């Protein structure tokens, strides 16, 4: 007995054809070595960088690279609360991932990874800031990651953004610190990789570099890599940093041009 109230399907059925490539890795780039968003392997993404978005902060900046969105506020220099003997100023960095910023919800309290990333940002920025001119003072940098599109490129963006915010606060620096990242996927270097590419990576390199002084302020590499490939990635990241540097300078000049 057939139930007439139901929608009648065809009498014969055919199994659906599932189109799925055997190796997803090949999908990361096409035959012309263009990546999913049309970039070449060595290209970085366009950057949106703007200063002075947070009214209460002494200096602030906002950066957007693909879906990565990071806001940064700089407060200080102010007097160190618990004074201990030190001829140099203190730099305090707090990175916070918004609970909705990653694929998995992050706990609102500060976790071990955030503490570690904060430490890395401190190490990347300290060489560029004239802390010797600010004894007994503290500079606070608060970084909020609103959206994370790849942890390595996110950290690089956070360093870039924080450096611009410090400059925006009028704190004396030796140079701006642009940072860039690269992923090692199948023996090739993918500059500025996104979240999907990052899941296939066998390693990464994050480099922050002061272009005017030609000094590396921070380097972090993970993965099983040949010396030759590391050297190549190192050169590519240095070039990328120089490109990001011009974006940073423009973002600082723009508000001044506007007032004129």
């Amino acid at each position, binding site marked *: 007995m057939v139930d007439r109230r139901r929608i009648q399907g065809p009498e014969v059925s055919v199994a659906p054809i599932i189109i799925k490539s055997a190796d997803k890795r090949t999908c990361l780039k096409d035959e012309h070595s263009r990546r999913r968003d049309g970039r070449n392997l060595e290209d970085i993404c366009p950057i949106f960088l703007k200063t002075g978005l947070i009214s209460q902060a002494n200096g602030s900046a906002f950066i957007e690279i693909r879906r990565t969105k990071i806001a940064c506020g700089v407060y200080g220099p102010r007097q160190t609360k618990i004074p201990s003997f030190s001829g140099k100023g203190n730099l305090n960095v707090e990175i916070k991932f918004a609970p909705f910023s990653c694929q998995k919800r992050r706990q609102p309290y500060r976790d071990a990874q955030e503490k570690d990333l904060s430490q890395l940002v401190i190490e990347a920025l300290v060489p560029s800031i004239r802390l010797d001119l600010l004894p007994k003072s503290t500079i606070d940098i608060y970084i909020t990651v609103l959206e994370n599109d790849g942890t390595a490129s996110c950290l690089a963006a956070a360093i870039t953004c924080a450096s611009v915010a410090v400059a925006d606060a009028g704190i004396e620096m030796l140079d701006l610190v642009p940072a860039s990242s690269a992923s090692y996927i199948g023996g090739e270097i993918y500059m500025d990789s996104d979240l999907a590419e990052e899941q296939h990576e066998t390693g990464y390199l994050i480099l922050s570099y002061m272009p005017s002084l030609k000094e*590396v*302020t921070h380097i*972090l590499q993970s*993965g099983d890599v040949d010396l030759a490939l590391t050297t190549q990635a190192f050169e590519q990241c240095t070039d990328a940093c120089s490109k990001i540097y011009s974006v940073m300078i423009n973002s600082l000049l723009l508000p001044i041009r506007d007032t004129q």
Partner: protein
Amino acid sequence: MAPVLISALEADYILKGIDDNLRADGRGRLDYREVILETGLITQAHGSARCRLGEGTDVLVGVKVDIGTVDIDGTEEEVATVKAKRGRVVCNVECSPIASQQFAGRGADDINNELTQMMSRVLNGPQGGLNLEKLCIIPGKACWIVYIDALVLDYAGNIVDTMFMTTRAALFNTQVPKAIIHDLGDGEVEFDLSEDVEEWERIEGWEHVPISVTLNKIGSRHIVDATPLEELTTEAKLHVMVNRNGKICGIQKSGSGSIEHSLLSEMVQVHIFVI
């Protein structure tokens, strides 16, 4: 961390000594102190090792393995299927207050966290060496979790290198109980652990676990295996992790200084010479 200070004269003495390739204890720039490595000291642990560097730095590493559930947090299906077949490594580093005054109270929090994250970054992933797939018991359900706990008992500089050496030795020493899998039919699988110690096995791939070489930049030169006074003079450190095939498994800078572009490339090359 409470700052430990160095006088300008002492710093200058160290700097000039390094320029002349002669350090306070008679070593040259690229000379290591004597290493004493012992394994299997702790019976409660599945593997343990202790390393003394010269007359000072002392690190004890205990490895315990435990059964845990498989952690699948990669949302992409392909990544999840790879993860389902793997065990994992959990690291923890603790600098004991007996090692140095600066580790007392909450003073060690920052350095503990930094070292723990550094070790996790190196040991989890393809560069870590361990064959994580061999640590899987039932795919998607149960796996071995390798807990590596490092304890810094005495501090005379160069914790990072000592820590990686000791970890490698402790993993060599680790014996994992054998899991016997019973198929109950209908896809139901259970397992028992073998009581027989003779059947316990080493973790596959321990020989590929990397070690670290730390280069300290002092003035315009760099040295290995710094003493505490030399570390206070150090502007920036570069940790380079290398495995037995000479592949680089990680590079990390620490410290407050910066490194010239050309010097950095040279420093990375130097590690191979040291090994």
